[in-house]
């Protein structure tokens, strides 16, 4: 298995892997952000519904 480094230059492979993993990570994180369920910034779903549940409507005024 180690012979692979006799064929592929470790420096080039490490640079390519770093770039590839960075692009892959950015892509996947932004895909997650684009979904409603996994958008950890907007925080929709569980936490948001709790906040909206606490705001009860005003009682009708007597005038």
């Amino acid at each position, binding site marked *: *298995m*180690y*012979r692979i*480094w006799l*064929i592929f*230059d*470790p420096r080039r492979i490490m640079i390519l892997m770093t770039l590839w993993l960075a692009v892959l990570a950015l892509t996947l994180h932004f895909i997650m952000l684009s979904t409603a369920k*996994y958008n950890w910034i907007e925080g929709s*779903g569980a936490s948001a519904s709790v906040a909206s549940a606490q705001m009860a409507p005003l009682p009708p005024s007597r005038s």
Partner: protein
Amino acid sequence: MSANQTGLTSQEAREFHSAFMTWTLAYIAVAVVAHVLVWNWRPWF
């Protein structure tokens, strides 16, 4: 086509490979922890 095109000796290739595998496994371990945390937050199945 000789086996050695990168100028490394077999010993150097062995050393690099062991470090490469160690770091790869470390990377996978971090990814597994991250996925476990996300699963606990919001399971995807």
